[in-house]
C-alpha cells in the first residue's frame, strides 16, 4: 500500500508540471493585459514601466515561467498584480471559508441524495420514483444564481430563518462556540444552493447503482437464503451500490478548494471563488495561477484518496 501511494504521488509530479506549463501558456495567449485596467489619466508612462519591471512583465515569457516555477516550488505564490499584496495572504484569508462551505454542502449532498436514491430504487417506476426523478431534473437544470436568489428570498427575507449574505455577523463580538454557530448559521443557505445540483445528480447515480445491484446474482442468492428484505438491502445491495460514489467523492474532495464562483458572489460569501472571478477579470495572473494550481493538485490528490478508499470498500481490489 505504501509503495502504491508513493508511486502514485511521484506520478502526479509530471502531471503538475504539465498543467502548470499549459496554464501559463494559456494565460500568456489570452487577450488582455494585467496593467490595462490600472490605467487612468494619472498613470504616466514611467509608472507603467515601473510596474512592469516590478512584476517581471518586461522579461521574456519563458524566463517569467521559470521565475514563477522556482518561487512556486518554494511555496511563494508571488505578488498579486492587481492588489500588489502577497498571493498567499489573499488565499489564506479565504481558503478556510471555502473549505467550510464545501464540507457543509457535501454533508447536505450525501445526507439527502443517498436516502432519496435508495427510496427511488426501492420502488422503481412508482409515483414516488417519478416525482423524485422530475424533482431531480428541475434541481439539475436550475442555475445556481436562481436557486441562490430563491433561497435568499424565501429563507433570508420572507421567513428570516437564515442570514441572506456573508459568512459571519458584522461587529458581533462573538467568540468561541458562539462564533462557530454564527458561521454555521451563515453557511447553510449557500451550502444548500451548492448542494441542490449535486443532490439532483447524485440521487440518480445512487438509484441506478442500487437498481443494478438488486438485479445481481448475489442479491438473488441472499434473498433465496431467506434473508429479510432490509438485511438484503443493507448488507448486500448498498455496500456494492455505493462503490461508484467513491469516485465522485474523490472528485468532490478536489473541488472543495476551488470555491463556487456564482454562489459565493450572490451570497457575498468571501471564498476563493469570489477572488478567482475577480482575478480573471483583472488578469491578475499570479492569483489565477495559484488558485488553478491548488485546485488541480487537490483533484489529483482527491483521486488518489478515492483509489485508496476502493481497497477498503471493495475487498476484491488490492494494491501491491
Amino acid at each position, binding site marked *: 500500500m505504501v509503495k502504491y501511494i508513493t508511486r502514485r504521488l511521484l506520478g502526479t509530479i509530471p502531471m503538475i508540471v504539465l498543467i502548470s506549463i499549459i496554464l501559463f501558456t494559456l494565460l500568456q495567449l489570452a487577450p488582455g493585459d494585467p496593467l490595462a485596467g490600472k490605467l487612468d489619466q494619472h498613470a504616466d508612462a514611467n*509608472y507603467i514601466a515601473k510596474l512592469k519591471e516590478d512584476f517581471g512583465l518586461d522579461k521574456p515569457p519563458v524566463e517569467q515561467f521559470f521565475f514563477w516555477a522556482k518561487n512556486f516550488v518554494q511555496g511563494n505564490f508571488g505578488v498579486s498584480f492587481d492588489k500588489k499584496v502577497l498571493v498567499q495572504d489573499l488565499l489564506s484569508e479565504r481558503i478556510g471559508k471555502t473549505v467550510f462551505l464545501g464540507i457543509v454542502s457535501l454533508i447536505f449532498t450525501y445526507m439527502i441524495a443517498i436516502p432519496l436514491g435508495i427510496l427511488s430504487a426501492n420502488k422503481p417506476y412508482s409515483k414516488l420514483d417519478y416525482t423524485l426523478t422530475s424533482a431531480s431534473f428541475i434541481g439539475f437544470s436550475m442555475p445556481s444564481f436562481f436557486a441562490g436568489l430563491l433561497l435568499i428570498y424565501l429563507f433570508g427575507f420572507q421567513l428570516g430563518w437564515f442570514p441572506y449574505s456573508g459568512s459571519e455577523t*458584522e461587529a458581533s463580538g462573538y467568540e468561541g462556540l458562539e462564533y462557530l454557530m454564527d458561521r454555521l448559521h451563515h453557511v447553510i443557505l449557500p451550502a444548500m444552493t451548492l448542494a441542490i445540483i449535486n443532490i439532483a445528480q447524485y440521487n440518480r447515480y445512487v438509484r441506478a447503482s442500487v437498481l443494478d445491484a438488486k438485479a445481481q446474482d448475489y442479491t438473488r442468492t441472499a434473498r433465496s437464503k431467506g434473508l429479510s428484505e432490509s438485511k438484503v438491502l443493507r448488507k448486500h445491495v448498498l455496500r456494492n451500490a455505493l462503490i461508484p460514489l467513491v469516485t465522485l467523492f474523490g472528485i468532490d474532495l478536489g473541488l472543495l478548494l476551488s470555491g463556487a464562483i456564482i454562489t459565493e458572489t450572490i451570497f457575498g460569501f468571501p471564498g476563493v471563488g469570489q477572488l478567482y472571478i475577480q482575478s480573471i477579470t483583472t488578469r491578475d495572473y499570479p492569483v489565477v495561477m495559484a488558485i488553478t494550481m491548488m485546485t488541480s493538485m487537490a483533484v489529483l490528490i482527491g483521486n488518489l484518496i478515492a483509489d485508496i478508499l476502493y481497497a477498503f470498500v471493495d475487498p476484491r481490489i488490492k494494491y501491491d
Partner: protein
Amino acid sequence: MKKRKIGILSLAVVMGLSVFATACASKSSGDGAKKKSITATMNSTFDGKFNPALYDSIYDAYILDQSFASLWKQDEKLETSIPDLAESWKESEKKDGVTIKLRKDAKWSDGKPLTVDDMIFTWKFIADKEYSGSRFEYVESIKGAKEYHEGKAKEIEGIKRVDDYNLELTFDKSDARDLSTKVWSTPMPKHIFENKPVKTLENDPAVKKAENIVTSGPFTIKEIKAGEFVVLEKNKNFYGAAEGKPKLDQIVWKVLQEDVAIGALKEGKVDMVSRIKPSSFETIKGFKDVELVEDTDLGYQYLGFRTDHPKLADKKVRRAIAYAINREQMVTGLLKGHGTLLSTPVSPKSWAYSKDLDADYSYDPAKAKALLAEAGYKDTNGDGFVEDPAGKPYVLSLEFPKGNQVREQSAKLIREDLEKAGIKIDLKQPKDFAALAETVQQKADKTMEMWLMGWTTDVDPNPKNIYGSAAESNYYRWKSPESDKSISVSMYDQKAFTKEGRKALIKDWTKIFQQDSPVVLLYSQNVIDAYNKRITGVQYDYRGALGHPSFVDWDVK
C-alpha cells in the same frame, strides 16, 4: 448496525447545530440596538488597502473617504473651497505658491496630534523613488519634487515648514490649475509609517489590519473581513468630535451583489445602496420608506476615433459622425433619463462649464450627410452607403467592452444612426474590458478604428491628461499643436489666474476640441443612491450621497 447509528447520529448533530445556530443568531439581534448604526452596500469587493496614498480600488475609496480627513474639500461647483484639516490657506497671486495653516485640534485616531510634519512626510513618501502607487502627479508640481523623485536631492526644495501648524509651498511655476491637482492633500500618520520600507508597504499591518490602521477622519476602521464587510466606528479623536460629529456611531459596509442588495433594501435589512444601475431605478421607486437621489456623475462615455487611421484622418468625417449620432436617444431611451447629454469634456457641474457650447454639438443628420459629401464621401453605386473619395467601399469598425449594459446597447444605436447617415458599420463582438483596453492602449496598433469607452474626470477642468498630444491617455492619437498651445495657455498664462479668465481660455480650447472631434462625447450617467428614510440629514451632489462632505451630520431616527 454500527454504521447506521453513526449515520443517524451525524444527522442529528447537524440538525441540532442548525437549530441551535438559528436560535443563537436570533437572540443576538437585539445587541446593537443602542448604537446608531447604518449598513451600506458596495457591489463588488474592496481590495483592503486602506491607505490614502496606496489604494487603487473605488471600493477602498468609499472607506477612506469616511476615515481619512484631507486638507480641504470641494464644493458643489468642483472648487476647492471647504476647509477640513486646513483651517485656512492662501494661494499667491501668481499661483506659484500657497501658505497653509492647519487646525490645532486635529488628532490621529490614536490620540497623537496631527501636524505639518505628517503632511510633509506624506509628500516625501509619494515622491520617493520606491513608492509603488500612482499619485506622484499630485506632488510633482511642488518645486524640487522631481529632483527628490530622481534621487538628486535629499529634501523637496519647495516645502517650507514654518512651525507645527504652518507651512509654505512653492510650485515649479505659476500654474492656474485647482489646488487639489497640484497638492496631494490627505496625510498619512508619520509616527506609524516613518521607519517602514516604502516599496512593500502594501503588505504592512498598518495598511491592512483594522487594529493597526490609524485614521484622521470622522470614523476609524474597527473590523475588516476580506471580501465581506468593513465596520467603521466613530473616531473619538476626530476634530469634529467636540461638536458631536459624526452623529452616527457605526457604519457597516457590506459587499453585496446589486440584486440582493436591492432586495435587502426593500426588506429594511440594509440602509443604503449606492451607484445603482439606471435600470433598477423604477423598481426601487416603489419601495416604501426608501428615498432615491441622483446627480450627474463626473465621468462620461465617449466614442473614440483613431485619428491617424486613413479612414478617420479627415476631421469632416469625424464631425459628420458626431452630427449623425442621436445621443439624446441614449439618455432618454437607454438611461431612462438618468443621465446628461454632454457636449464638452468639462463637467456641467463645474464652474468652468460654458453652456452655450452645447449649441454646435447636436443631432443633425442632414448636416452629417452634407459634411460627408463635402469630404468626398458619396454613394456612387447606389447601395445606400457612401464610398470613399477613391470610390472604394467605406466600412468603419466599432469595438466595445463587455460589462456596462447601457454602453453595450448604445453600440447598436450608434450603428443604426450611422448607417442611416450612409456610413456602413462593422460592429464587432464585445470583448472583455482588459482585452479591449490592451488594444486601445497599444501605440503600434493599426487594427482599431472606433471604440466605446469611458473616462472618470478630475475636479479640475484641465484637459491635458486626457486630450494633450503627448498624454499617455491620448489613445485617439490626436496631434494638434493648436490644442496643445491652448491647453498650455489655460494652465500657465497670466490671464488664467482669475476664475473668469481661465473659464474663457478653457472655452477657447473646447471650441478647438469640438471642431476637431477626436472623440464624440456621448453621455454622463447619473450617480444614483437609494437609502432608507430612517437616515436623516442626507445631502448629495455629483459625489452621490455617501461621498458628500455632509455625511458627518447624518443621523438615524
